[in-house]
Structure formats: C-alpha cells, structure tokens
C-alpha cells in the first residue's frame, strides 16, 4: 500500500496478542459490572465466537450500552500501566464501559483470518450508529491487522461528524503510528478547520513536517484575508519550519495578537531555526524566560 511507504513496519499483532487483550479488557469489566451483566457478556462472547454469527455481533454491539451501562472506565494506575505495556500510547481516560464492551466483542470475533476481521469492522463502521463508530475507532490500536484497518481509519477522519473524527484523531496512538504523511497532514488541518483542538493529537510534535507547515500557513492567510481569527494552536506545527516567509507571519501574531496569541507565537518562534527568532524573543524577556524554564508550554494556552 503506497500509504504505508514512509512509516516503519508495525510489529504484527498475533492471535496471542489478541487473547492477552481480551483477557485484559475482560479483567477491567469484571471489576466494574455486576453478576447479571457478566453473564450477559459471557453469553454474547459465546454466540460471537461460536458461529461467527454476524447478527449476534451486531446485536451485542448494539445492546452494549443498555446492558453494561455507560460509566467512565476510569482505569486505576496499575491497570493503566498494564494497558500501556500491551499497547504503547493507549489512552483510555475518556473511555466508557460500553465502549470497552464493544471493543471486546470485536476482538472476540477474531479467528485468525485478518481479511475477514477487517471486513467485519468495515460492516460495523458502515452500519454503526454514532456511539458504535466511536467505540470502533477508539479501539483501533487494540485490534489485529493494523495495516488492514487503514481504510477504516481513513473513513473515520473523512466523517462529517466531529465526535467520530475525534475518535481517530484524539488520544489515539493509531494515526501517529500508521498514517502516511499526506493522511496525517489532512487530519491535522481538518482538526483546525472543524474548530476542534490539536492538543489531544498523539505524536503531534514528532510528526510535524514542512508540507504541513505550508498547508497551515496557507490556511492562516486564507482566514486573515476573510478577516477571521486564526487558532493560536496552528503555529505549533509551523515554528520549526519558519525560516523566512513564515517568520513574518509569526512576528505579526507575536506583535499584534492578544495574550494567548502572543504566547503561541512566542512558543513557535522559540523553535525557529533563525537568528531573528532570538532577537524577537528578547523583546518579551519575561515570557521568553518562562518558555525556557518550561513554565509556559502549548498546554498553557487557555
């Protein structure tokens, strides 16, 4: 797949891995749901694993919220550590019990046939109600056949529904690990375009690139030409590539922006590979000192 050309090959996800993940998630749920719910869960897993029954999987996924509840998962420190050991970067802080149940049902449907598994997930995405789609996309990093899931991830970021888009883009290790540069750039630009936020994108800083910086600066110019505001977050992905042209834009924001915009511009300028950057920052010594000391960062923009 040409989309994979510039990403390192991800380690394959084996049947053993899947079984470990089923056990992991099973343990989370066991501590959080009652006996009757456990029984319902077991019954669904039997029906799903047994006959490879499509309707059984669809109904289990559909019924999960009302049978298991929608409480926040809220893993404790040791559970979270074990999870991170299984899947690096897994961030479950916003996850709910029903989402995890749905992910479990999908994992349980895996019988070693990767192509069939991908097709099954495509069906869930195609037929899935909003909550189901969100659960599916949040679970991407847990599933087998990660490369085969790229189409599903792509559909996720093409969604016209913000919460579905964010299920891929936010707190999810999958895009940083698997997206090609063009896909990654589209995702970042779209995040700003739909008034979502860049902060929760995993790997945001690591995957900055020159083409993305160009797209973002072009977008900023478009907004300014229409007398509209530019999100201060935008500059985060511009700094390291702001030699001559873009530097003027950063200076503009640094000099005439409001307090938050000035902070953002200063942070971006502090990553500029040009001597003029230092000159500019020295005109705001307090802010510059705070940035150097790590007291002001991109998470402090509010």
């Amino acid at each position, binding site marked *: 797949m040409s989309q994979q050309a510039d990403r390192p090959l991800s380690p394959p996800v084996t049947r053993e891995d899947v079984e470990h993940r089923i056990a992991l998630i099973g343990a989370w749920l066991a501590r959080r749901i009652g006996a009757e719910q456990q029984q319902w869960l077991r019954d669904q897993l039997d029906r799903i694993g047994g006959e490879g029954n*499509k*309707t059984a999987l*669809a109904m289990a996924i559909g019924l999960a919220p009302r049978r298991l509840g929608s409480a926040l998962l809220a893993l404790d420190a040791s559970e979270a550590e074990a999870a991170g050991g299984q899947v690096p970067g897994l961030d479950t802080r916003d996850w709910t019990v029903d*989402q995890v149940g749905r992910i479990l049902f999908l994992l349980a449907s895996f019988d070693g046939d990767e192509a069939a598994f991908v097709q099954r997930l495509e069906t869930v995405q195609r037929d899935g*109600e*909003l909550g189901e789609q969100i659960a599916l996309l949040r679970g991407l990093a847990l599933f087998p056949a990660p490369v085969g899931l790229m189409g599903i991830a792509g559909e996720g970021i093409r969604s016209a*529904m913000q*919460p579905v888009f964010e299920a891929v883009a936010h707190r999810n290790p999958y895009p940083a690990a698997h997206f090609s540069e063009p896909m990654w750039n589209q995702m970042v630009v779209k995040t700003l375009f*739909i*008034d979502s936020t860049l902060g929760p994108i995993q790997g945001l800083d690591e995957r900055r690139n020159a083409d993305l910086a160009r797209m973002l600066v072009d977008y900023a110019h478009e907004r300014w030409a229409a007398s509209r505001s530019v999100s201060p977050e935008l500059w985060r992905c511009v700094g390291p590539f702001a030699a001559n042209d873009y530097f003027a834009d950063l200076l503009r924001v640094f000099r005439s922006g409001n307090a938050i915009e000035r902070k953002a511009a200063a942070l971006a300028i502090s990553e500029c590979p040009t001597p003029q950057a230092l000159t500019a920052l020295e005109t705001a010594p307090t802010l510059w000192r705070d940035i150097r000391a790590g007291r002001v960062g991109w998470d402090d923009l509010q």
Partner: protein
Amino acid sequence: MYIDPHAHMISRTTDDYEAMAKAGIVAVIEPAFWIGQARTNVGSYRDYLAHILGFERFRASQFGMQHYCCIGLNSKEANNEELAEAVMEILPGFATKDHVVAIGEIGFDEQTVLEDKYFRLQLDLARELDLPVMIHTPHRDKKRGASRSMDIIVEHGVKPERVVIDHVNEETVQEVLDRGFWAGFSIYPHSKMTAPRMLEIVRTYGAERLIVDSACDWGVSDPLSVPKTAMLLTESGVSAEDVRRVTYANALAIYGQSGQMREEDWTKAAPVDQREKYAGNTILRGGQSPRVEDARN
C-alpha cells in the same frame, strides 16, 4: 417544550432545525420510511437506516435537539419481495441499536398480500425485542386499513398500549381509542388533518392517548405543526395540562417504554464542554447556541 414524534428530518433543511429548536421542540422521532423514489437494493436501505441513526442524529444535535428513530421495513417497499427479504435479515441488527424507540413505521399502503406478510413478521420482531410499534395507516381506504391493522396487531400478541396508530382522522379515532391504542394525528397545512380539526377532536375525546405530530417530509408539510397546534389549542381554551399531553407528555410516555427516550436526555443536556465531549451517551450534547458553521462543515 414539545416533542415531534414523527418527522422525516432526512428531507428537511437546517432552516427547519433552527425554526424547530427556536419554537421549543426538544426532541424528534424519525421513523424509517420510503424516500422520494423506491430503493432497489438492500445496500441503499441499509445506508438509509445507518444515516437516520447516525448523521441525522448528529445534525439534530447541532441545533440542540435530541433525535430518535423507529426502525422497520415500510409498507410500500414490502411489495418488492427480494428487497423485503433482504431488509428483514438486517432489521434485528439495527433495531437493537441505541436511540431506537420503536419498530416503525409499518402497516399498510395498498393492503396487498406482501404488505400483510411483512407487517406480521415485524410485529413478531417487535414482540421479541420488546419494542413499541409505530403504525402507518393508509391514506387511501384508511378506515378499513386501520381496522385491519389493529386486528392483526392484537392477533400477534402485541399490546395496544405499546402501539401508536398514526395518521388518525375523524373516521378512525373512535376505534383506535376504544381498542386501547395511542392515536397519532399528523397535522398538515391544508390536507389530511389540520390544526382546527385537531382542536375539535381534543374537545370531543379529551387528551388521553392523543398525540400530535407533523409527519414532515419531502412533500408539502410543516415542521412547526406541533408548536402551532399547541398554540391554537391554548388560544381556544384547552387546558395547559391537556395541551402538554398531546404535544409532549403522551409521546414521551409511549415511546419512552422502549427505555431509549428519557426526559433527562434534553432537560439534563448541558452546553457543549470539550472535557465532557467523550463521555458515553453525553457525546452528542447540542450547544445552547447552535453553531451553524459547524453543521455545514
């Protein structure tokens, strides 16, 4: 606060959503039905079901409105047997999704043998899944079609108190109420049932088990029928309690039996808060000031 328990929002514009929200409609129910032209394969039917459950619900949320669905094979397309068979296979998977409040809208269109077959099968499905039912009564030969529908519902063991007979008029209302069903009245601007006629019906029969809806779709129809009817009833001296019942409380009572529609869905919906955006069933809170820009993206 109003509920419009029969609105084909897939055919309506964002202008309608804005007007409905402004007029005080807090929740809509969108029943699966035929669309402008006949669907010819199960793929488009399936995409339609996914659309009303997914994107349409999201679209409603952008205007601060809660959106629910009825799922079913409609009477018109039941006459395409190959399509009907394929749709019946996928219905259980869709009918068990969140925010599905009933099997519907099902019933008769021309009262053919095939319509009868799939009507009965779906009543059985409703019984198995313990879901309420929304019944479309035919616009032609309505009295007999409605009567037959009620006979078949009872025959298949579905309780009348779990069923809304919709598109009721002066000719059918007595039997619907006598037999213990809920009576839905679709209020159109000029044809079929109008607000002034609804007023007379409420005066005659009282507010018990009467429900007002717009059935708004691609044709000439009014997405503000429910609040406008409420206003007319109020101005004409109907008690506030009775107006509330026919334009809000009765719809909530019958469709709430599904467990998928609760008053707190809209009374406890807070403005969009980024930190809360991901928590379970609170994901789709609409903002208090709907952002039209977002809905267009």
